[in-house]
């Protein structure tokens, strides 16, 4: 994997040049957003987030928080409503999409208030002092529930949780289905997940009241169409929102598009606080409430001939976008619209697309963006067709592939595939990936009685999104009214300075992809200089730089669009330089040659000018060069491919410019005992057009592959039935480590794109589309049962195994008590006992005395007796990484003094809520009293999300501390009775 360095000064593009980005990053001198120099009066923001998935906000009391020393300002939904407008929604709907809850919270983790303080620690202290009174509403959690009209709508004005539905028909799908030999269908569910970057969101904002303008730096990744959404939300013209990005960004994978609602909040916070404000999201916030892929239900049916040829597809997709249809959604659903037939020549397509809202975090960009959802259905179906028809899956794939002589190929749904030789790439993959050997291996493994399977996926990877594709969600008549949207403007600027050195700027906003390195190569090749002589800037300042709505880093647009545009800008400079040189060298323009840092006459290398001298000429001696148009100083090119036209009247849409091809196959073994899947071999073949930097292309493939391993086996933003998020830490949301990610065999096949200046296509997202389904097909092959959902956890695999789970080895003892999850949230049960040197009556009295309880309950601030059988306590306790203050209400019933009692109670706090009941019994023993207890409870909110797996242990610890204190108290004075275990648990557990 040694990448080597390009030698000499020949063609640099296409070689694996060492990255110019690396040295600073390796030395810890990167410039990420939280590393940038800060204004001396900078304040820090923390965001209070909803602990309820769905509730009305009865009141927000910020009084105590405001009084905390160091707090500068507190912003609530009311302030945001007064100072801004809702975020524009991409579909005409009476839905107000605010970046903060106003009157009602609709997802767990939704912002409710923002504190601006002298530092983050104090800001978080103040969050604890804000009191929110919620009136919980039933949560709509699944897309099925959203489709059920009996459930209440999240947005009353919309009136339904089904917020958009469109049906499409291309060709004649009805006739094709009627004539088909077979109809084969599959229903699958794709989960919520996200390629969470290791750097979280960050925003630094300031407001100038004199010019009524905002200046924001954020690790936003684009698309900069969002700049228009932000300006409108902040109620300023576009030129009064200066949006900048830091030079380095710690990964994004689409996810950092989702920082934009927070940009509005922090910009407003800076305005209210009258000082610059910084907000760095923490990991718990990120996992809870940043952004994720959509979860989607798909039923896909194919009309199939006996030989496996598909003549029609019928898609039924239900897209769950979370609580709001937040821009650019429903883009995840429409990004693939031109590609709904994948790599196959299928002339007839019917599509029913429904978009629903649920009480979950709103969705957004994520690596693969719509592709994983589409291909999980399409390639599972292709495999199922082979199984049902008794055909070789490779034969079914091959029979349906678009033939090489059909390019450029117009798909049924309107995409124009630029180039490819899918069958050629498939054959090369089978040959170079040693497919025959894998088949033999499967036979051998199965002969040993092992569970071994092979899976495949053929995928078309779109890149360079058409900015108009989302408008396919509108009817042709609505589009006509709204005006056409299309294209994908890329920008590049090449400038010469007075010493004749070359600078490049693009608005590509990378998050680690190495754009600066590649642009150095591309521009150096055009100008005949060394890549090291080219300085490249890739971050964006909307006030100074060339940019457009398509700017940013998404839809794998760098190699095909941005680097190609840089080449065009360099050529424009070169052509001007050539004209100047021609006069000086006494040759025609055509005879001017750029190479080795010199500009010379073709065929006469001695007749030459140093490049730097020529490049500086327009600064020092413009009068000798001619008119303005001839000056070679700075050239900016805006490039948009003509193929990216608006959706047509028949709803055909060329949703992307470029279409790469991927063919993957793999062999997996399943461990019978555990349900663990071991990837034995993985081969991935890519045709991404002309390769600009082999090392980076492989880097994209490896990274996407690792992300796909997570999606296939580990990662899911799981929610309880009550809407509580269950995956709020990296201990619950499992990102694969080196131990889980094998090294794939990577193969390449190059068919240049005729639509891009360098022939390159995107390559960043393909494995997120191909790998999860290839693995699911392999697992299905091993088990002989079709996988219909992800992630393929060991328990899911075990449930699919036809064979009974092997008996537990004798050496293994089962856990003493496996807590059964109650309905939604985290279930918690426990029991125990303790002995005290006191009589039952003494214990009983102690435990009904608020003053005593306040002293012995861990973290207790006060206990008040509301009535003889109702106590209210104010406690602070922590579970795992979260610590907070709770109001706990406990009511006693079935009181049999001094022998037993039943307790039921609730706990509410900013970090979560809980409810449950317990029993306490007191028995006399020779030495005193034995107290025994049991409890059963459900915990929701942040506690369940981030501390879930720690709850049982924390509950035991708190109960233990309580008994210790009780024991001390009892031995000192009196004691007796009943509720401690329960009460202490409630205080401790409900954290």
């Amino acid at each position, binding site marked *: *994997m040694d*990448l080597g360095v390009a030698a000499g000064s020949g063609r640099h593009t296409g070689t694996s040049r060492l990255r110019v980005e690396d040295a600073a990053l390796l030395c810890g001198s*990167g410039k990420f957003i939280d590393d940038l120099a800060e204004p001396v009066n900078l304040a820090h923001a923390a965001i209070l987030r909803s602990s309820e998935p769905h509730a009305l906000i009865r009141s927000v009391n910020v009084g105590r928080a405001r009084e905390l020393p160091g707090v500068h300002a507190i912003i609530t939904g009311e302030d945001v409503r007064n100072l801004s407008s809702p975020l524009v929604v991409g579909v005409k709907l009476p839905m107000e999409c605010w970046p903060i809850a106003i009157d009602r919270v609709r997802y767990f983790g939704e912002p409710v208030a923002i504190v601006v303080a002298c530092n983050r620690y104090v800001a978080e202290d103040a969050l604890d002092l804000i009191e929110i009174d919620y009136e919980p509403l039933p949560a709509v959690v699944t897309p099925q529930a959203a489709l059920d009209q009996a459930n209440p709508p999240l947005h009353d004005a919309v009136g339904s949780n089904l917020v958009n539905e469109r049906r499409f028909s291309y060709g004649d799908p009805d006739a094709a289905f009627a004539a088909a030999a077979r109809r084969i269908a599959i229903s699958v569910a794709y989960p919520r997940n996200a390629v969470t970057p290791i750097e979280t969101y960050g925003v630094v904002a300031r407001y100038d009241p004199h010019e009524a303008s905002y200046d924001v730096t954020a690790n936003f990744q684009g698309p900069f169409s969002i700049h228009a959404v932000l300006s409108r939300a902040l109620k300023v013209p576009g030129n009064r929102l200066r949006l900048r990005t830091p030079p380095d960004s710690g990964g994004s*994978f689409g996810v950092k598009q989702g920082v934009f609602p927070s940009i509005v909040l922090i910009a407003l916070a800076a305005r209210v606080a009258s000082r610059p404000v910084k907000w760095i999201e923490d*990991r718990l916030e990120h996992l809870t409430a940043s952004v994720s892929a959509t979860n989607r239900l798909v039923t896909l049916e194919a009309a199939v001939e006996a030989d496996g040829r598909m003549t029609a597809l019928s898609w039924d997709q239900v897209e769950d976008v979370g609580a709001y249809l937040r821009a650019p959604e429903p883009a995840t659903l429409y990004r693939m619209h031109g590609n709904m037939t994948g790599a196959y020549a299928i002339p007839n397509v019917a599509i029913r697309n429904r978009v629903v809202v649920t009480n979950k975090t709103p969705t957004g960009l994520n690596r693969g963006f719509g592709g994983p959802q589409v291909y999980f259905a399409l390639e599972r179906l292709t495999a199922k067709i082979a199984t049902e028809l008794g055909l070789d899956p490779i034969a079914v794939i091959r029979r349906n592939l678009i033939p090489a002589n059909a390019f450029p190929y117009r798909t049924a749904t309107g995409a124009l595939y630029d180039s490819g030789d899918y069958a050629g790439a498939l054959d090369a993959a089978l040959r170079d990936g040693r497919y025959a050997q894998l088949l033999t291996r499967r036979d051998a493994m199965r002969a040993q009685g092992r569970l071994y399977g092979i899976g495949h996926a053929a995928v078309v990877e779109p890149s360079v999104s058409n900015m108009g594709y989302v408008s396919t969600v509108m009817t042709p008549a609505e589009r006509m009214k709204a005006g056409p949207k299309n294209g994908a403007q890329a920008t590049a600027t090449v400038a010469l300075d007075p010493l004749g050195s070359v600078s490049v700027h693009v608005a590509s906003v990378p998050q680690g992809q190495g754009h600066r390195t590649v642009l150095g190569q591309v521009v150096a090749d055009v100008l005949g200089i060394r890549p090291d002589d080219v300085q490249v800037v890739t971050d964006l300042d909307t006030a100074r730089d060339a940019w457009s709505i398509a700017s940013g880093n998404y839809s794998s647009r760098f190699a095909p669009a941005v680097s190609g545009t840089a080449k065009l800008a360099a050529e424009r400079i070169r052509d001007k330089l050539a004209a100047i040189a021609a006069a000086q060298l006494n040759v025609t323009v055509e005879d001017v040659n750029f190479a080795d840092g010199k500009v010379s006459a073709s065929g006469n290398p001695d007749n030459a000018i140093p490049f730097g001298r020529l490049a500086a000429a327009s600064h020092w001696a413009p009068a000798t060069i001619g008119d303005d148009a001839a000056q070679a100083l700075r050239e900016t090119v805006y490039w948009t491919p003509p193929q990216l036209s608006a959706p047509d009247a028949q709803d055909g849409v060329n949703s992307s410019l470029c279409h790469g091809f991927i063919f993957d196959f793999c062999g997996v073994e399943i461990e019978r005992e555990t349900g663990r899947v071991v990837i034995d071999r993985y081969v991935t073949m890519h045709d991404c057009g002309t390769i600009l930097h082999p090392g980076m292309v492989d880097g994209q493939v490896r990274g996407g592959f690792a992300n796909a391993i997570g999606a296939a086996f580990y990662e899911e933003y799981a929610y309880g039935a009550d809407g509580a998020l269950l995956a709020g830490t990296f201990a619950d949301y499992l990102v694969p480590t*080196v131990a889980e*990610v094998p090294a794939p065999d990577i193969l390449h096949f190059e068919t240049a794109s005729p639509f891009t200046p360098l022939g390159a296509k995107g390559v960043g997202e393909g494995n997120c589309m191909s790998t999860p389904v290839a693995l699911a097909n392999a697992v299905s092959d091993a088990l002989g049962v079709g996988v219909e959902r992800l992630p393929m956890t060991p328990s899911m695999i075990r449930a699919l195994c036809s064979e009974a789970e092997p008996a537990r080895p004798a050496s293994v003892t089962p856990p003493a008590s496996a807590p059964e999850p109650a309905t939604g949230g985290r279930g918690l049960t426990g029991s125990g006992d303790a002995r005290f040197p006191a009589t039952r009556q003494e214990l009983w009295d102690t435990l009904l005395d608020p003053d005593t309880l306040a002293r012995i309950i861990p973290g207790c601030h006060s206990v008040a007796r509301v009535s003889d059988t109702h106590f209210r306590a104010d406690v602070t306790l922590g579970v795992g990484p979260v610590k907070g203050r709770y109001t706990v209400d406990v009511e006693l019933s079935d009181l049999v003094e001094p022998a037993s009692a039943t307790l039921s109670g609730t706990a509410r706090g900013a970090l979560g809520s809980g409810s449950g009941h317990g029993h306490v019994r007191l028995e006399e023993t020779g030495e005193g009293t034995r107290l025994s207890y049991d409890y059963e409870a459900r915990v929701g909110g942040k506690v369940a999300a981030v501390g879930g797996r720690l709850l049982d242990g924390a509950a035991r610890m708190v109960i233990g501390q309580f008994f210790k204190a009780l024991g001390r108290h009892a031995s000192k004075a009196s004691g007796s009775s009943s509720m401690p275990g329960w009460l202490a648990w409630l205080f401790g557990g409900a954290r």
Partner: protein
Amino acid sequence: MPRLSRDETTPVRFTLNGAPVSGRAEPRRLLSDFLRNECGATGTHVGCEHGVCGACTIRIGGTMARSCLTLAVQAEGATIETVEGLAPQPGRLSVLQEAFRRHHALQCGFCTAGILMSLDTLFLDEPDAGEVRIRDVLGGHLCRCTGYEPIVQAAIDAQSRLRSGNTDV
């Protein structure tokens, strides 16, 4: 043992990459925050603040540690090394850093500081650590960009150069 007050700052002094540093910290201030905000050593990154991602890994008294799970006051009198101390001199890279660059073992570079510190510590402690040990140590880090394999290869390459004394790159 000194008693610390919740509301007051305490002097904190330690050696950072060979130079003395000092400042004041509330008892609850994380060492990661202290390094970044008080010492200006922003090369150590914070990725999760609950000890899982490994981005904030540094060396305290020769042992690798999560700076997000360490309080600044715990560092009093310690010897601390961070990513800023790895390069032999400005403008040059260490053998391990060079290997990372050669093998494309980083993309965004955000998790990289922690990984470098873990591997550097491993090679100091166990110069003969094999691939299994290397993978074991890397298992304590999350990286979203690289797919890990280039990191493993860079580590193996660097280690073999360090062992053979062939540090030319």
